[in-house]
């Protein structure tokens, strides 16, 4: 299982605002695929998927603002259990 963290994308700020998720829990995803759209101090950007597998859980929903380094989702094999908190 892979914890996906919000990358540091901004020029001056650590914060990123999640605009929308482009995939939903249970979807198969692959490396390089756009997962979500975010807005930073710099621009609107896509965050790409860093692993192959199934999107097990979205931790940070759309319309939330998170710091770089925050776990935003988990990717893994179907049926794997996701850590709570």
């Amino acid at each position, binding site marked *: 299982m892979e914890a996906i963290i919000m*990358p540091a994308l901004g020029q001056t700020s650590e914060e990123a605002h999640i605009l929308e998720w482009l995939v939903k829990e249970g979807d198969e995803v692959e*490396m390089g695929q756009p997962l979500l759209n975010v807005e930073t101090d710099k621009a609107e950007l896509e965050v790409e998927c860093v692993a192959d597998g199934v999107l097990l859980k979205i931790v940070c929903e759309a319309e939330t603002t998170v710091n770089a380094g925050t776990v935003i989702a988990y990717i893994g094999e179907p049926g794997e259990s996701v850590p709570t908190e």
Partner: protein
Amino acid sequence: MSQSTNTLQQDALSAEESLHLLEEMVLIRQFEQTAYLRYLQGEIPGTLHQSQGQEAVAVGVCSLLRTEDWITSTHRPHGHALAKGLDPAAGMAEIYGRETGCLGGRGGSMHLGDPALGILPSIAIVGGGITIAPGLAHALKYKETDNVVVCFFGDGAVNEGAFHEGVNYAAAFNLPVIFVCENNMYGASTPFHETTRNINVASRGAAYGIPSEQADGMDIRAVREATERALLTARSGKGPVLLEFLTYRYVGHSRGDARGYRTKDEEAIWTAKDPIKTFGAAIVDEGIASEDQVKEATKRAKKRIAEALKHAQQAPWPDPVAALAPNIIFGNPPQKVEGAGPLEEGPDEDRYITIADSIRETLHSELGTDQSLVLLGEDIGVPGGFGGAFGVYQGLAEDYGRHRVIDTPISEKAIIGAAVGAAIGGLRTVPDLQYADFVFEAMDELVNEAAKQRYMSNGKLTIPMVLRCPVGATQRGAQHAQHPESFFMHVPGIKVLCISDPYTAKGALTAAIRDDDPVMVFEHKLLYGAKKRQEAGSINTRAYVPEENFVLPVGQARVRRRGKDATIVATFTELYKALELAEKLSAEGIELEVIDPVWLSPFDWGTVMESVRRTGRLVIAHEAHLTGGWGAEVSARVSDELFADLKAPVRRVASRDIPMPFSPPLEAAVLPLAEHLETAVRDILSPDHTRSDKE
């Protein structure tokens, strides 16, 4: 400029070959993409310079090379290294900074390499490899192989002086180097066309009289065709070739580059030429391979990178102690030595010789015993020429031939770069600089390359070379007078030898030549005793020197005179002033101990500390400038370690911090004089040791 394309009948690539090339390109793309995404996840330290979009150049060129051929690469080396055979796991672990990385984590993303695979740890100084490649090629040619060196660099590098010196040097000596410029139109964010009037890099080949051509770097078949022609030239002894491949990097210069200096339209034009997609489609269209086969090749490459990633993520961090391992810093790490005593008298009147003669004898005899030794320099072997700036090389070319005593262009960067490259290729060289002042021309080759290659290669390379640098003021003004030895004491990885007498000249120079590390030898013009070049102020340093070569320990100081009242540590002319002063004060019952450190690095701390512990007093004397001179380091260490033993402050006598003027009375006003030394010694011997000279 460009050669006709039909000199070489290229057979169509087989399905197997085509799929292999495709797989190798995908391997690089996937390596880069994976590293990029993992970097964003915070798993990779530092930064990354990546090569997505440039895969056809790396794979096209390297797929035609042998393991025994070498490549030099740049700050953007991932593709080159993988294409030349680096295991992706070793590459990924290296950029993760892990112990199992190809260089044990000493290099990282900008320094991938493995000498066993012919991949020089890549050089992150723009243009840095261009002066190294010719020397490496020289070694391959000297050993009578037909192996070649491929030197990769970007468009940014062609406006470096290194490009001019390196390409000209390779051309002058017909060396088997293929210079490969990956013109991706930008150096960092600056468009290439803003930096030069001549944006056609290939056309610059004409300036050096070498064949060159420009080709589409997005088309692996075009890359291979151009490379095959170049290899034909280089392998057959016809010398270097310059290739320019037009290409594009799809990503930012390094991490954190949002590419705001490029237009989306421009990026789209180049995205349409994607070297992987176009080649994959072409081989399917042409019926060379099936779509399934292309998919399979892609899958294989991705699987290899997935495994490499897993390896890197799980690999251990290096043990911090490994950073300090002496045998990684030096091929021959400094040993504990016992200081030598005063020079001995010899039985044979004829064997009292000058420093110049002693150096000549040493080189003559080492050339005779070591076939892998060559001398490099300006005016050293030309028949009827100078025999070196101070006549030291006279007769050597006649005895050993001009392929061993090599006259170079006036290209200091290229000379030192060639020495570093030749060392990597297994030769030993003694490059000569005429005047030490010229060393500043080649600081990059010395400090960034010679001093670093062993460490950066994780101890896989040794860089034996002995750079001769004549120093000292001899009424020639500010640019033929300097003492740069102190600069190099500051550089880990370089050894620094100062020759002040003929006996040490032979023993220490022999040791330096046989040593596996870069040694800079400083020799004072007024101490040579060369018949041809008598200078005002010359000092007679003749001493007994045995005829046969012998080796003195590296890092050994010499106590020239023993005494109990105060210690003087001095080099070159100041050493002789100190010996004279000791003689004079001896008549007054004051006994000075005079030490010639001989080596500034490694420094014989044991001998100096032992002496000062006994005498409790120290004066350091050198012709190098006072501020930041090597005496400052000695003073600091002695004051720190022997604070309780010192009976007076440590004093330094040196040239004033002023450029050396020409006119004799002006020169004398800047140089340290015998009276300064005497005053300093009398001061520290006086009961209140107050400073009596007025600065």
